[in-house]
């Protein structure tokens, strides 16, 4: 297989999956004929090839994938005008706590927000595969520890948790007072 053919196969693989493909997985397409290095080169070429189109090739937490450029959305929404509903403040705050403070128990979330957390909210993010139970804290009741998934990162187009916007210090004077 020459490199043009390999590029065609790689492009077809990336366009036919919603999930991102890790480079190690892409190597399977060529039965080990191509080294990760070669595949990375092909990915850069593909990325250039798609510059100026409606889709772009991006690297996210679990690998590489195509996605539409944000400026396409206003057109694509016309085909499917029902917008996904936005999350409530309670849901978003819960998600933010899990994302920034993980792993956390439900009790931790309630402590920070000062109110009870509805089971529904946790279930909703679990069913979207954005959060998962990764263990239990070794205290009475063995509460579940929640963390975000790589699907969450993928869906927000992030490579890792450290790509999340940093938590803002609302009052920098606080540190000055304390020190």
């Amino acid at each position, binding site marked *: 297989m020459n490199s043009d053919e390999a590029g065609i196969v790689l492009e077809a693989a990336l366009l036919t999956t919603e999930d991102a493909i890790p480079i190690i997985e892409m190597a399977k397409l060529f039965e080990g004929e191509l080294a990760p290095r070669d595949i990375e080169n092909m990915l850069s070429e593909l990325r250039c090839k798609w510059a100026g189109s409606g889709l772009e090739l991006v690297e996210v937490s679990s690998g590489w994938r195509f996605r539409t450029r944000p400026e396409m959305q206003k057109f694509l929404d016309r085909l499917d005008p029902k917008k996904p509903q936005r999350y409530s403040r309670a849901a978003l705050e819960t998600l933010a706590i899990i994302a920034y403070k993980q792993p956390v128990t439900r009790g931790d979330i309630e402590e920070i927000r000062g*109110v009870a957390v509805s089971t529904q909210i946790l279930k909703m993010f679990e069913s979207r595969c954005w959060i998962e139970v990764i263990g239990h804290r070794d205290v009475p009741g063995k509460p579940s520890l929640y963390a975000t998934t790589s699907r969450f990162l993928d869906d927000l*187009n992030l490579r890792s948790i450290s790509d999340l916007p940093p938590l803002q210090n609302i009052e920098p004077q606080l540190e000055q007072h304390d020190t």
Partner: protein
Amino acid sequence: MIVARIHGEAILELPQDLYIPPEALEIVLDTFEGPLDLLLYLIRKHNLDILDICMAELTRQYLAYINAAKQRHELAAEYLLMAALLIEIKSRMLLPKHAEMEAEEDPRAELARRLLEYEKIKQAAITLDALEQAGRDFLLPHVPRDWLDIPEFPGVESEDLRRAWMSVASRVRMMNSHKVEREELSIREHMARILKKLQGRNAAEFVELFEAGAGLAILIVTFLALLELARESLVSIVQTDVFGTIYVKANNEF
């Protein structure tokens, strides 16, 4: 000392003297995500210093809110718990300071820490919501990888159908009990199309069943399909008067 501005959305415009029309209260409390959110609002609204909270003032305002709210509907326990906490802090601050208590933490410190922590998360939630989200702000490619749309279903290709038919046909031949005719497929397809058209209605005009602008071949096939439907008693073709409109109706009324 500069007090930070309200980050994120301004919630409601309330008069400075905290008078709230009672009917607005339910809405007001629904706007808050809990006692911390309400406290933050009061602090920011009245330019209080979060690190040097005037406990008497804050407690007074907080209690005014929840007392008014209590008259309207049952208040979540968290709001009452916070009221108790505020009163406790306030009373601890009234106690005369002893020498050994100097080293003790400011009773307000824990509350300030929680408020700042919560405010950070509140801000983070807004930032998180502003990030691009798959399905909302961008889409992922969705080209079927298989010959078929739905990979979790078994695959069938038209050749499989031909083979399946062949096996049925040869079995029928062996049993010699049923004559399998070769038939123009397009006639059967048009039979199905006509029946679909007749579904859910009494009758259709004969001419209406012929696709306008279709080629001669299609018209002939449609005609043959109608005859075949009549022969199999799937439809009746009726004409009430001479040279009148010819109607076709499906024979499926119960």
